[in-house]
């Protein structure tokens, strides 16, 4: 029996290695029909539909998108202007999924942002693209210009009372630009540091006005939901978290890349069926399921489903859904050192635990890797997974940073101990 080919709301127009569809081809493929439909609906109806779809934020946190939008003050009494910020500051190590959407189907990103803006009655939208994504910024800029020409942006969109301006912002590189409030500060031309919450950005955001900040992949689902309904979107998933997910993999596997699969596809299926297992000559040791801010998982976890709630149960997180594989010829201590070096460098320095703690963690790992570790170091590292954990710092950078450390201390403790006992790295 052959089953119908799976629907791919995110990547249906993407042809690897080729130019993306231009706006006319995009329209011919059904593009901008969702916006036409959306404009016939009320913003409240769209918000309800997205809430019913169980769409959860794909930037890593997994917050329900419909719920986030529901906090935005609506109607005549809401403070204006209101904003949408599309978070395309993809800089989580090991993550390369939003690049695919931005480069592969920029019109989808723009249409998604317009519908989202309408759903919260925003007056302006910014697509915040990291400095390194030059091609993505070029293509998004072109897609926006063409959308203006076609009347999808600007005053009275498609003859409706709704008006929207849209801009690309490319910034100058800093990990915290991807943090919701860091992004808003960066857009305001300030240092990209987090803000005190509450109030949340949906109520007090850009220039103090209500602002919805959503990840690129999250929003790219919205046109499908509007066109096909919440039930159809939920049906795409293996679990009760709706839709498909862009899963990716890097490291020493046979096939690296990104695949759009049903939400809740198992780790094992992604690893074996899509990545083809390890490269010849390498053995699997562990993986980070969703970027640098997630904890290690082992082969024992291959039956686990890659959705937010199932990954939480493993002690790790879905994060961005882009897997990083650790092989047997790579030292786990050195790998964690590499990760903590990144986080220590990108810490904004605002809060003491993160500013002081992350360099300490990095230095201890470096000492262990170079054969100068002591048995006490492991206790200090372990303590830092709590000191820098959730609730003890100003934002989520440090709690994310200690996740792979915590996992490594749990699953690769023997490797740490061998470094200390032998006073050298067994891999070097």
């Amino acid at each position: 029996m052959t089953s119908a080919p799976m629907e791919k709301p995110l990547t249906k127009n993407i042809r690897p290695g080729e130019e993306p569809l231009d706006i006319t081809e995009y329209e011919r493929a059904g593009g901008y029909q969702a916006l036409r439909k959306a404009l016939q609906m009320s913003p409240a109806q769209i918000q309800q539909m997205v809430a019913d779809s169980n769409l959860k934020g794909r930037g890593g946190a997994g917050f329900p998108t419909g719920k986030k939008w529901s906090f935005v003050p609506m109607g005549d009494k809401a403070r204006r202007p209101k904003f949408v910020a599309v978070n395309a500051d993809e800089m989580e190590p090991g993550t390369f999924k939003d690049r695919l959407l931005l480069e592969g189907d920029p019109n989808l990103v723009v249409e998604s942002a317009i519908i989202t803006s309408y759903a919260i009655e925003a007056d302006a939208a910014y697509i915040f693209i990291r400095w390194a994504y030059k091609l993505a910024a070029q293509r998004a800029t072109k897609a926006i210009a063409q959308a203006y020409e076609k009347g999808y942006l600007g005053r009275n969109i498609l003859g409706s009372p709704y008006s929207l301006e849209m801009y690309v912002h490319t910034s100058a590189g800093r990990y915290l630009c991807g943090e919701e409030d860091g992004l808003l500060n960066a857009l305001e031309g300030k240092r990209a540091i987090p803000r005190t919450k509450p109030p949340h950005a949906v109520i007090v955001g850009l220039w103090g006005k209500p602002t919805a900040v959503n990840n690129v992949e999250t929003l790219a689902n919205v046109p499908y939901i509007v066109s096909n309904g919440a039930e159809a979107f939920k049906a795409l998933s293996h679990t009760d978290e709706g839709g498909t997910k862009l899963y990716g993999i890097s490291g020493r596997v046979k096939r690296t890349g990104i695949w759009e699969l049903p939400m809740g596809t198992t780790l094992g299926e992604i690893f074996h069926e899509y990545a083809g297992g390890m490269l010849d000559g390498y053995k699997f040791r562990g993986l980070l399921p969703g970027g640098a801010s997630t904890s290690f998982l082992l082969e024992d976890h291959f039956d686990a489903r890659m959705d937010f709630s199932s990954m939480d149960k493993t002690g790790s997180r879905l994060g961005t859904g882009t897997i990083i594989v650790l092989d047997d010829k790579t030292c786990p201590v050195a790998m964690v050192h590499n990760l903590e070096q990144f986080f220590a460098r990108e810490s904004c320095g605002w809060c003491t635990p993160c500013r002081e703690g992350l360099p300490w963690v990095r230095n201890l790992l470096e000492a262990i890797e170079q054969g100068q570790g002591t048995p006490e170091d492991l206790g200090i590292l372990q303590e830092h997974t709590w000191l820098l954990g959730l609730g003890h710092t100003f934002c989520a950078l440090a709690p994310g940073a200690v996740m792979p450390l915590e996992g490594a201390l749990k699953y690769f403790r023997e490797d740490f101990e061998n470094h200390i006992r032998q006073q050298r790295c067994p891999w070097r």
Partner: protein
Amino acid sequence: MLTDEEKREIDVEVAKYHRKSAAGPEALKIVQGYRGWISDESLKDVARYLDMTDDELDAVATCYNFIFRKPVGRHIVVICDSVSCWIMGYEQILRHIEQRLGIQMGQTTGDGRFTLLPGACLGACDKAPVMMVDDDLHIELDPGKVDDILDRYQ
């Protein structure tokens, strides 16, 4: 003094935002594009143009990894040193480039041709190891390929 061209480009950015100062990072990038880096004098020029103090704008300039407050070479080589590239051979690529250019990370070649900088994940992890030279991404690097690439930037 900002040139007319620089002012014109900054004005385009200013129009996107609700406050002039929001254009700070973009204005610095524009000026850096013409002058290579942001000297104290350039910083002051941009700050005045956006009705900011020097210190306000310097706080912004020093926050972002790709605003250069020191002179840099004609071409900026950014090697991705994040986890996937590191697993796939970053250290070998770094050693090769350092040897070939005769400089270490963070330095500029004597002829002012290249500055070598560390880069956080460039978002091309499936094609690791990678680097950027100026605006161009180069993927699936090996030492031979790196030589060919560097030759193209004079």
